[in-house]
């Protein structure tokens, strides 16, 4: 019984949140990694584009909600997602046309792309706040929980509750599907392979008859899908506020890099490494220990390795340690 309680407490406060957060990071990191892998630059506009994608989805969601459309118990936002993706894809392709294409033409160094993406980030930042404002927006509906903590306690008679949110469930499932599809697409389909070829050696891709503009366009469309999905799911689970999307950039990059830049599997692994290290290292193990240890050994302190103040520091330490042992990330990423 005590053991079960310990397990449930651990799941409730460590495993489930970390898995859900990890999947969110992974979805974001997938986009970053894809852009890096194929267009060969680190896209700083990723966070703010994510906010844009989520914003468009929210606007559609509100519209649907006002018309009474719903797919209860799932959130209406899922219905709005495809529309969000389409609009975001159009925006990204427009951005590429007006900004990045020029630098591809002049064969600018990757760092110039990075700086240009910062320019795009600033613009996107303004656009989003301009349209929807800097504040919190609520758009979640449908059933919030799959399992509620209180219900779980009542049903099992355990003293610890276990909560599992719909948004967490959707995020995890989506992350798995998206990764599988993306992996299959890049490694098995002709188009996917041509995209990898393009990233590997642009000139030679040209000589093989691969149309670079098409590759770039497809990349942006996939990125738009990833970005909008990630942004919307994040908004459903936590909250939609433009600034937090910008703040997501750091953990997302950390995930992509620790997993190995340019490698989709790495993005997933990286997301989980970052999420788990943030949650576990600063977790106070007291609660679990109380259940597991005999009373005489019960800890007086919190049994916390590090205070949560250092949560970011801890995840970065782990990241650095990983890089020191695997210099191109967990899954061999590209190096420039």
């Amino acid at each position, binding site marked *: 019984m005590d053991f079960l309680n310990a397990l449930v407490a651990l799941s409730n406060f460590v495993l489930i*949140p970390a898995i859900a957060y990890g999947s969110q990071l992974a979805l974001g990191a997938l986009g970053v990694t894809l852009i890096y892998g194929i267009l060969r630059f680190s896209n700083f506009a990723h966070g703010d584009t994510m906010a844009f994608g989520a914003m468009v989805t929210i606007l559609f969601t509100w519209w649907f909600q006002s018309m009474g459309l719903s797919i209860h118990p799932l959130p209406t936002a899922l219905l709005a997602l495809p529309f969000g993706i389409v609009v975001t894809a159009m925006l990204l392709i427009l951005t590429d046309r007006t900004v990045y294409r020029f630098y591809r033409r002049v064969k600018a160094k990757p760092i110039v792309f990075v700086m240009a993406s910062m320019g795009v980030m600033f613009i996107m930042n303004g656009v989003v706040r301009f349209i929807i404002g800097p*504040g919190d927006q609520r758009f979640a509906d449908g059933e919030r929980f799959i399992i509620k903590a209180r219900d779980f306690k009542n049903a099992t008679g355990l003293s610890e509750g276990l909560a599992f949110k719909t948004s967490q469930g959707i995020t995890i499932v989506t992350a798995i599907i998206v990764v599988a599809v993306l992996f299959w697409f890049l490694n098995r389909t002709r188009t996917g392979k041509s995209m990898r070829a393009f990233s590997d050696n642009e000139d030679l891709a040209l000589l093989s008859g691969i149309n670079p503009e098409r590759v770039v366009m497809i990349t942006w469309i996939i990125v738009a899908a990833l970005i909008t999905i990630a942004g919307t799911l994040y908004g459903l689970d936590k909250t939609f506020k433009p600034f937090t999307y910008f703040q997501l950039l750091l953990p997302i990059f950390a995930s992509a890099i620790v997993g190995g830049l340019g490698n989709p599997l790495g993005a997933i692994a990286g997301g989980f490494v970052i999420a788990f290290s943030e949650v576990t290292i600063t977790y106070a193990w007291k609660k679990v220990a109380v259940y597991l240890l005999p009373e005489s050994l019960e800890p007086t302190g919190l049994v916390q390795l590090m205070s949560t103040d250092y949560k970011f520091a801890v995840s970065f330490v782990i990241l650095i340690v990983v890089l020191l042992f695997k210099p191109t990330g967990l899954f061999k990423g590209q190096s420039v």
Partner: protein
Amino acid sequence: DDHAVKIGVLLGFTGPLESLAPPIAGGAEAAIAEVSASGTFMGGKEVMAIRGDSTCVDSAAATAAAERLVTGDGVAGIVGAMCSGATGAVLTGVSMPNGVAQVSPSATSPALSTLEDNGLFFRLAPSDARQGELMADIIMGKGVKSVALTYTNNDYGKGLADSFAAAFEAAGGTVTINAAHEDGKADYSAEVGALASAGGDALVVAGYSDQGGAGVIQGALDSGAFDLFVLPDGMVSDALTEKFGSDLDGSFGQHPASKTDGAGKLEALLADAGIDGASVYAKEGYDSAAVLLLGMHKAGTTDGAAVAAAITEVANAPGEPIGPGELAKALEILSNGGDIDYVGGSDVELVGPGESGGSFREVVIEGGEFKEVGFH
């Protein structure tokens, strides 16, 4: 035009607390518009608000913006800045050298109290120390003996958390954990996990209602870690109850407000102008601009030192109490040589070196709404 008196509204419109800035600015501008519309300010002068962005995270940009307001636009006083860092930088770098009065609606850092300011600086956000002690009393009064405590990792949160923890422990309570959270971050699972593990009968959240504070509460509710929350001023806002509805029923807290129901009146007044008066520090925004202008009017000049001297007088007794929306009346009284005691929406009372020592309203959440239960 040259006859207009200009007031700088220097707040963090962009950056981590950007979502808090517009209502504060709205409040300040409402007061300015009210004074201007009265037509009696300093012999019929108009008043104009000019916004500046203090960003909260870039002291240099804040100073530059203030410099532009003061030396370029020629503002006669500053409402701002928002965060303590920018406030200090602007005060030492711009206001003091140029002799301009500055009233911050939101800076709370105790360190500002001892900063040399030639008497030019005022702030209306209440002192953390007093609130901490009060909060400890209120919690004890409810029979809660053990709490977990989380605070937003800035001078406001840290100051409040420290003073509360000291008072609560002195009164025999236990603070099981005293952990910081950063605002605007993506995820608060780690914080919630640690707080839950430490346990306690309630969770004290010394944060902001639409920042990390809300994120922590969300996590705690979702995982069933806590269901009783203690909410100090930064958390008492309708944004919170809108977001969580009746999930927070039973949770309680306190925030500075006037007995005279200035708060309610001001919220209604601001709502007419399309401003969310319930947002954190929005009322202080209105009051900051009001005391600044009333002081100016009383001094009869825009000279900083004179204005500063007058501000203390208009803000404190003796005199006719002035509530929100009564600025025209206040100007009138002052013109006639009378005395006023500005109370406003946040029960302004300046004590010590230009600090607010207002009273607090105790609230509890019932049916998804804040209900007033008493005054302290």
